[in-house]
């Protein structure tokens, strides 16, 4: 059925479910401990446990010998599997064939699995996995951006956007400014680690419970390693204990190993990574070095920007194509660059393969743009907010470096203006200046930064989704779609949409696990698109069934379709009224199909990567944040004092869930830019592979004065489901205001000098910047 453009615009009608701040669908199960995660599923009899083995002394090198006899001899070990036990291809990569399930010749990073132990208990498997005797002929690893640049090693070709004539711009701009910024990566630290349970069936079938944001891809990769058709593999995901991009491609490997183990032993096999192994083996947010140069006029209007993005991708390509593209798409933040060169390199290093992480490269690009703004404001001696606003996209200055027109810039302006007022930015700016003038040790900083985030997968074919809705003859509804639930409230939002369609209360809608046998060939739940895509697909499926019921009832009762209303758990049929179940039974007896598949493909996106032209995004999500910090210039310690956020979700489908996404995203972004530091030693070993050494924010890191509001939107101008906007990723970038505020505090130490602050702004990074400011050699 073709999607009716108008069905996305029922705004103004009285809505019973949509728009209400309902709790997460599993909230009661969460607090009761009865929500079932993969490791909680009652294990089938005879379940075995799988633990990957790796070389603890090798980062890069040729495998000379691998003696697994001591592993096999360990009590409880049932099997040891390696490359020879893979019936299909030894490849778990999403696309490019560059990620072996088990390294068989060369080790490419510290933590790369070489084999896996299958034992009767997890404990036995863990002990046994450490008993392999591994001999490796070591080769010098490439570890840093500079190592990879010097060696000229990349995982994918370079790519660039070019707008206007940047060379002319740089030659003719009245003033130039340049700098370089290092941006650290980020560990996802989903609370539930990677886990899969593979149950072998008849005829080579495999059923896998996993914690994956991309069940279809997990299915396809399992089929690839097993050497069976996709149809022989079924993957199910009820919920994840957090994803954040870390289970978009990174869940596949472990599900595939579990499946191979199940195939090899003929028994159910569960693989749950130990937290340290998880942090060592799986990819993270890309770390970057960004070299930037800008030309501007006397008023601070940008004339030209030249940005070089160097991304450390790790040993394989994984999703680095799209990630770094998205950095480029957001290297403009909210600012108009008349001429621009946005260049990117995807560098290969012998470290874990960096991957998707909430924002998918966007945060790094935006951070660099905001650094340019802060630096230029200092250079010109103007308030950074004034400079930002001066350079915002506006009429006539509305084309991005990739050629797409920014149509909704009025929303950006309105949000920033409102937040400027509500946060009392100007008065606090003065108070902070006064404080800093009399405080030699503590310095305060303030920053108000915007967010403009492009919504749609930039890989066009991913912008499609399917749903499957059944109406049973008792009136209960079975809801299924291709999106996965990782805590973001997708299942609840989609259920609200379906309940709205049938005019029933939410308890009528049974939310069911994502299942590749019900909705096939789905994209990942990623790019903030879960609700936009799956909500619309489910709505279409529900409309289909409802349409059949209406047609049936109109004929049966000889009334106009307009006289049939689904509301308040009843169906009004002219003068008659019945329950949905009664109508469903009547329709069933009349042989009307009460099941429908819905399909949705995002309209109006035309991006063509080879020519770097077209429209990559359906729309933009906007927001702004104002943060105030205090920095201790003796130690580099920092405290966030107050945060004000105003964020645009269009017409909210569920304000409670949306606020949760905004706050959670902000705090996660704040962690990325402050306390969360990934440290590799000079041999390429990750030293921060547990929460003891890798520090995500705790409750006390969130300021008590934390004011979060939804922007009073007139609705998404693009025809999304109920005119809502995606909300998963954009709030991460609200946290750039914290980083800018720290920069602002440091700037007070030496007016006119530009602090050289890298991310994350740990106490050590802040103190380093303090010292360079005091030496007067900053910038």
């Amino acid at each position, binding site marked *: 059925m073709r999607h009716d453009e108008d069905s996305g615009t029922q705004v103004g009608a009285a809505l019973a479910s949509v728009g209400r*701040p309902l709790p*997460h669908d*599993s*909230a009661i*199960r*969460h*607090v*009761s*401990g*009865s929500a*079932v995660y993969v*490791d*909680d599923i009652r294990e089938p009899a005879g379940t075995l446990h799988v633990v990957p083995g790796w070389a603890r002394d090798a980062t890069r090198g040729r495998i000379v010998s691998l003696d697994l006899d001591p592993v096999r001899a360990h009590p409880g070990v049932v099997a040891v599997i390696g490359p020879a036990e893979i019936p299909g291809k030894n490849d778990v990569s999403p696309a490019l064939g560059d990620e072996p399930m088990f390294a068989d010749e060369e080790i490419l990073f510290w933590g790369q699995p070489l084999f896996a132990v299958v034992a009767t208990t997890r404990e036995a498997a863990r002990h046994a996995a*450490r008993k392999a005797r591994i001999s490796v002929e070591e080769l010098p690893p490439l570890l840093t951006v500079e190592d990879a640049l010097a060696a000229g090693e990349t995982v994918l070709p370079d790519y660039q956007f070019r707008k206007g004539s940047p060379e002319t711009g740089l030659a003719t701009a009245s003033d130039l400014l340049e700098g370089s910024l290092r941006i650290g990566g980020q560990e*996802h*630290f*989903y*609370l*539930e*680690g990677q886990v899969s349970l593979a149950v072998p069936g008849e005829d080579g079938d495999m059923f896998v419970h996993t914690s994956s944001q991309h069940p279809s891809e997990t299915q396809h990769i399992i089929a690839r390693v097993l050497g069976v058709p996709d149809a022989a593999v079924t993957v199910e995901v009820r*919920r*994840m*204990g*957090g994803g954040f991009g870390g289970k978009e491609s990174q869940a596949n490997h472990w599900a595939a190993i579990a499946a191979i183990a199940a195939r090899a032993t003929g028994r159910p096999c569960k693989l749950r990574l*130990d*937290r*340290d192994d998880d942090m060592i083996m799986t990819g993270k947010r890309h770390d970057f070095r960004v070299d930037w140069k800008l030309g501007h006029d006397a008023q601070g209007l940008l004339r030209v920007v030249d940005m070089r993005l160097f991304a450390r991708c790790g040993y394989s390509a994984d999703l680095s194509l799209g990630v770094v593209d998205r950095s480029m798409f957001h290297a403009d933040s909210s600012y108009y660059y008349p001429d621009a060169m946005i260049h990117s390199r995807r560098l290969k290093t012998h470290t874990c393969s960096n991957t998707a992480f909430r924002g998918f490269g966007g945060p790094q690009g935006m951070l660099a743009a905001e650094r340019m703004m802060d630096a230029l404001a200092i250079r010109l001696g103007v308030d950074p907010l004034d400079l930002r606003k001066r350079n915002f996209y506006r009429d006539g200055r509305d084309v991005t470096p990739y050629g797409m027109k920014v149509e909704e810039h009025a929303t950006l302006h309105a949000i920033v203006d409102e937040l400027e007022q509500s946060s009392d930015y100007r008065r606090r700016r003065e108070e902070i200046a006064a404080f800093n003038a009399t*405080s030699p*040790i*503590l310095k305060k900083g303030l920053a108000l930064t915007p967010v403009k985030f492009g919504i749609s997968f930039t890989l066009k074919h991913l912008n499609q989704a399917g749903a499957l809705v059944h109406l049973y003859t008792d009136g209960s509804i079975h809801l299924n779609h291709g999106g996965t639930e*990782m*805590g*973001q409230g997708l299942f609840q939002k989609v259920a609200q949409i379906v309940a709205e369609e049938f005019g029933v209360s939410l308890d009528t809608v049974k939310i069911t696990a994502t299942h590749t046998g019900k909705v096939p060939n789905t994209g990942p739940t990623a790019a903030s698109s879960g609700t936009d895509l799956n909500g619309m697909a489910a709505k279409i499926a529900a409309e289909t069934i409802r349409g059949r019921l209406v047609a049936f009832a109109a004929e049966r009762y000889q009334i106009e379709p307009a006289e049939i209303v689904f509301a308040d758990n009843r169906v009004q049929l002219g003068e008659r009224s019945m329950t949905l179940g009664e109508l469903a039974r009547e329709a069933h007896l009349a042989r009307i199909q009460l099941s429908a598949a819905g399909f949705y493909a995002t309209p109006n996106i035309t991006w063509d990567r080879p020519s770097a032209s077209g429209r990559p995004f359906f729309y933009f999500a906007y927001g702004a944040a104002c943060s105030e910090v*205090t920095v*201790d210039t003796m*130690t*580099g*310690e920092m*405290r966030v004092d107050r945060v004000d956020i105003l964020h645009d979700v269009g017409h909210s489908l569920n304000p409670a*869930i949306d606020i*949760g996404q905004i*706050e*959670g995203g902000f705090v*996660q972004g704040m962690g990325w830019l402050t306390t969360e530091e990934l440290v590799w030693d000079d041999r390429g070993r990750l*030293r921060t592979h*547990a*929460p*003891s*050494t890798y*520090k995500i924010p*705790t*409750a*006390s890191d*969130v300021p*008590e004065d*934390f004011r979060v509001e939804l922007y009073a939107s007139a609705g998404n101008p693009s025809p999304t489901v109920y005119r809502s906007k995606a909300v998963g990723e954009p709030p991460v970038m609200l946290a750039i205001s914290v980083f800018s505020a720290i920069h602002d505090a440091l700037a007070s130490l030496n007016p006119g000098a530009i602090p050289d602050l890298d991310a994350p702004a740990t*106490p*050590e990074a802040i*103190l380093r910047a303090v*010292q360079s400011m005091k030496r007067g050699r900053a910038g």
Partner: protein
Amino acid sequence: MREVVRFLQGGRVVELADVRPTETVLDYLRLRRGLVGTKEGCGEGDCGACTVAVGRLVEGRLVYQPVNSCIQFLGMLDGAELVTVEDLAADGRLHPVQQALVDHHGSQCGFCTPGFVMSLFTLYHAPETPATRKTVTDWLAGNLCRCTGYRPIVDAAMAACFSEIDDAFSRRAAETVAALEAMERDTRDVVIAQEGGGFFAVPATLDALAELTERHPDATLVAGATDVGLWVTKQLRELPQVIWLGRVRDLDRIEETPGGVLMGAGTTFAAAHPYMARIDPDLGELWRRIGSRQVRASGTVCGNIANGSPIGDSPPALIALGATIELRRGEASRTLPLESFFIGYGKQDRAPGEIVTGLYVPRLDPNHAFRCFKISKRFDQDITSVLCALRVTLADGTVTEARLAYGGMAATPKRAENAELALLGARPDRPASWAAALKALADDFAPISDMRASEAYRKEVARALLAKALVEIGGTPDERTRVTGLRAGEVIHAA
């Protein structure tokens, strides 16, 4: 002698004869009992997803403490009540803390939620806690959430945890107390023997403990298991013989003497906290930042000393205060200054079979000034990169004695002897007079670079912290010199 471990769960006494010495409470719940509401997030006591509540009698009163079940050994439940997330809902209704989390949208992915529920359950049952967000964020420092940003969880706590205590547990408290008292009256030593000579032993008296450790000098002594637990879960070490100190009578005594505070080796950080806070607000704040509430509820001060970590948080501050420790081997006891106990990396002045039995912390005199700072990447529940503690004795504003100790700067907690010497005669209100002391730190320490901080940062911040201490003692108001802590104006409940 008793050959079963015995604890209370769901109003019933559980008796287990088959307890492996290092079997964790979490594995017991999930693997043996199929109680999978309690989650494993990290297996090292840092994320709190596995938090359970453990009820014990403290001076006859039932007290619930949060415990990281992933690193707590099952045998350590002996004599206690175990409460897990499955136990909370009663009569088909959620517990008030559960309902508040639902009402305030306090869960997203839900994986950390059972741990938060249990931490909030212990806050709900904690008496006399000030109803502030600071109380809550401190209480929850050991529970990581990656989804919500914490605000709704703190809101839920504010709504549920500071009203009258009225739940199924308070209503049956009398029976629970009676059951715990009955278990307490059984003062026999407990030994769960394993094949091959292994055991989990719970001596009931100091004499029995001394005798046991002398007979089994290779046995692992466990107090709170907040460190030893990780040897098992992360290093996969086999510890066949475990002696748990948790039921040794009077070992957890703590008392204020005219000159200071005396505590036994079983005293937890939580129990010592108010005593330390009364010595000095900085010491109280340091205590608050040691581990998390879960870690402080189980971990002991003497355990922190005995394991000799170069980054243990309490030793530098205790050394600056002039603390002494008491050791015993068999019948023989000795006392030594705390700094003398630390010989080298991982090496302490402790003979095989010898045990740390107590600690004495002198109070500050009126002519003392004390400051203590902890530097870490995150304020709460983080391992220190540099810890600085200074006690100076002042006469007419001039330093006549200095005790300056650092953590994270050497292979052991260590005094800065050169800087101490250079401080003599200095006046805190005259920075020029202590410039030499700052310089002397370079002769005292040659720190290393690691994942927590670089050598350069450690050296710089060591100087900065000494300077900050002296600036504050010299008269600059503390709220102008610090971004955090009591002296920066925060009010925190020390209990």
